[in-house]
């Protein structure tokens, strides 16, 4: 290294061009992908842009988006949660069993289900930090355990594999008003889960970019050892992140049980990978330390638009998964190209 000449301004405070500043944002690739998917289906299909059509794909994106955002925070923190998918069903089941079988008020049932979710999240985080095992393995275990618990408890309590009858429980209307109502825009009904999605995304983005806790998340995901040595409370941060995904799962579970008024014991299985892929499309790295909440929300939007757009386009449903897979791969590839460029800019 040669000694720096003082006449040149330091590269750290040099002015960058607008494109360069945009291109280093993790969500830019996802945004471009979303625009592409949006334009494509708007042109190809007639109903994609109709108010009802928009309501349909926003609805599909919203619950996926809530989870993608909380999972993105956890992934920036360098961990995975494979139990997130099945947790959305577990929380629904706890609420439904307490409300319909034990005759509790829905609000109380929701509260207990929230405590249950936070407990499972804290347990996941504690076990990962305590054992030093990869969270992939630990949460795979809790995923399978919850799957069995869902079926076992449901069969034990109800003798069937569904819990239904939420509509006749006390407090259903008021709780439903908060979690699962609809709002009217120009004569079209939109699900309130869309509002929840926007709110969760806003809170998560603020947390990640504007608070000390957000810096801790980036730090523990970037390098746990360095983070610990500069005084970041690593254990607390990671446990809180796992509790965050559980909280998201509780919110989605509550929205689902109050909207559909019934829950199946086998719901939610396999969704965890959709959350992860939405977060990855949104610019999260599987290795941690890089990502964005807004990006994850856009990733979920791409997923929802593609999923409903394929149906609107009336392509043969036999090939549905193939179309979806190719679209998601394309979105990830676009993302990757952007990230390479971004890394060059950073240098």
């Amino acid at each position, binding site marked *: 290294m040669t000694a720096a000449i003082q006449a040149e301004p330091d590269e750290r405070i040099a002015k960058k061009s607008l494109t360069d500043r945009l291109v280093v944002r993790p969500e830019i690739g996802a945004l471009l992908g979303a625009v592409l998917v949006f334009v494509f289906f708007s042109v190809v299909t007639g109903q994609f842009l109709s108010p009802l*059509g928009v309501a349909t794909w926003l609805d599909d994106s919203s619950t996926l988006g809530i989870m993608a955002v909380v999972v993105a925070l956890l992934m920036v923190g360098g961990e995975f949660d494979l139990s997130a998918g099945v947790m959305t069903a577990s929380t629904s089941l706890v609420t439904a069993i307490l409300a319909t079988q034990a005759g509790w008020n829905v609000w109380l049932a929701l509260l207990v289900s929230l405590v249950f979710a936070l407990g499972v999240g804290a347990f996941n985080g504690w076990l990962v930090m305590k054992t030093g095992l990869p969270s992939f393995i630990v949460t795979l275990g809790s995923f399978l355990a919850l799957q069995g618990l869902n079926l076992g408890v449901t069969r034990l309590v109800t003798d069937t594999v569904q819990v239904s009858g939420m509509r006749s429980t006390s407090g259903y209307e008021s709780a439903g008003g908060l979690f699962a109502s609809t709002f009217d825009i120009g004569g079209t009904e939109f699900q309130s889960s869309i509002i929840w999605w926007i709110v969760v995304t806003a*809170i998560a983005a603020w947390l990640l970019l504007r608070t000390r806790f957000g810096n801790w998340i980036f730090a523990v995901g970037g390098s746990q050892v360095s983070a610990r040595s500069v005084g970041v409370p690593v254990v607390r941060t990671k446990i809180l992140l796992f509790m965050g995904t559980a909280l998201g799962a509780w919110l989605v579970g509550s929205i689902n049980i109050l909207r559909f008024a019934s829950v199946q014991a086998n719901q939610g299985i396999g969704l965890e990978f959709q959350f992860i892929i939405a977060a990855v499309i949104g610019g999260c790295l599987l290795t941690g330390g890089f990502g964005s909440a807004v990006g994850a929300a856009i990733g979920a939007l791409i997923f929802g638009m593609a999923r409903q757009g394929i*149906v609107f386009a009336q392509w043969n449903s036999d090939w549905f998964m193939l179309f979806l897979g190719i679209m998601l791969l394309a979105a990830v590839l676009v993302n990757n190209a952007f990230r390479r460029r971004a890394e060059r800019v950073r240098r």
Partner: protein
Amino acid sequence: MFSFKRSFAVVAAVAATGLVLAACSGPSADNSNSSSSAPSSAAAPPGSSGPLKIAVVTHGSAGDAFWNVVKNGAEQAGKDLDVGVDYYADGDPGNQAKLIDNAVAQKVGGLVVSMANPQALQTSIQNAVKAGIPVVTINSGEDQSAAFGAIAHVGQSEGLAGQGAGQRLKAAGKTKLLCVIHEAGNIGQNQRCDGAKQTFGTVSTLQVDISNPTDAQARIRGALQADPSIDAVLALNSQVAARAVDAAKEASSKAQVATFDLNADVVAAIKAGTILFAVDQQQYEQGYLPVVFLKLYKENGNTIGGGHPVQTGPGFVDKTNIDTVAPYAQRGTR
């Protein structure tokens, strides 16, 4: 500088807006028995200028042999009657509801829905009825069909079919039955096993995962090994039946297999005598008939069934009639 307080206020304001908006119209509770009747006039719905278009939305997972026959039935009816038929399926009730919303947004002329989880689909189906789209429910959910405003239900009452299977097994001199459930979350399968219990007596149930055949076979084998006194296995699906036959062979158990639903494997096994009989709910009709009903409803104002479900089963296929049925099963229509 960024202020913590101000940003929190912004977030709170956004959240509050959300809550205010959300307070617009909540879901309605079950205090009024609102049975919205189907529109009495067979008025053409909006956007039905061209030929009739029908969307079929089921809960059958893609690649399921049973639902493939339903799909073939619906598509054949579309060809025969010159009606456009689109088939969609998703096993997750929430996603199925969204597919129904999607069909309503497309302004289809008619809707065919299987209701494995009626409550989850209630709002979507009622919205379709409200939009003037006639709905025919199929396969499951017969009790809710009329209340949701459907013009007919086509299916097989699961309890009755289970009772029929139990009776036949008892008549064959069996004493201990293992009933294999392959879809956690499907209420109809539990009703079948319960029906069999009512007419047969000693029945134990076993849960397997249909998406993992290796595991399903291993579990059935384990159950047969664990209790050698089991002399009959009732499978609820033709793929599981084939696994149960292999499992019984591997466990060198005396158990004979009976099954719900037909496919080519089951036909071969009935011919060979390794499967006792199949309860055939003739699901081809569940795909074909709704298209006919919707066409009649649109063009002539007809309804069918008089408020009762149209029964497509149970029919029984065994050694006596297998030769007639075999070629149909081969081509995916039985």
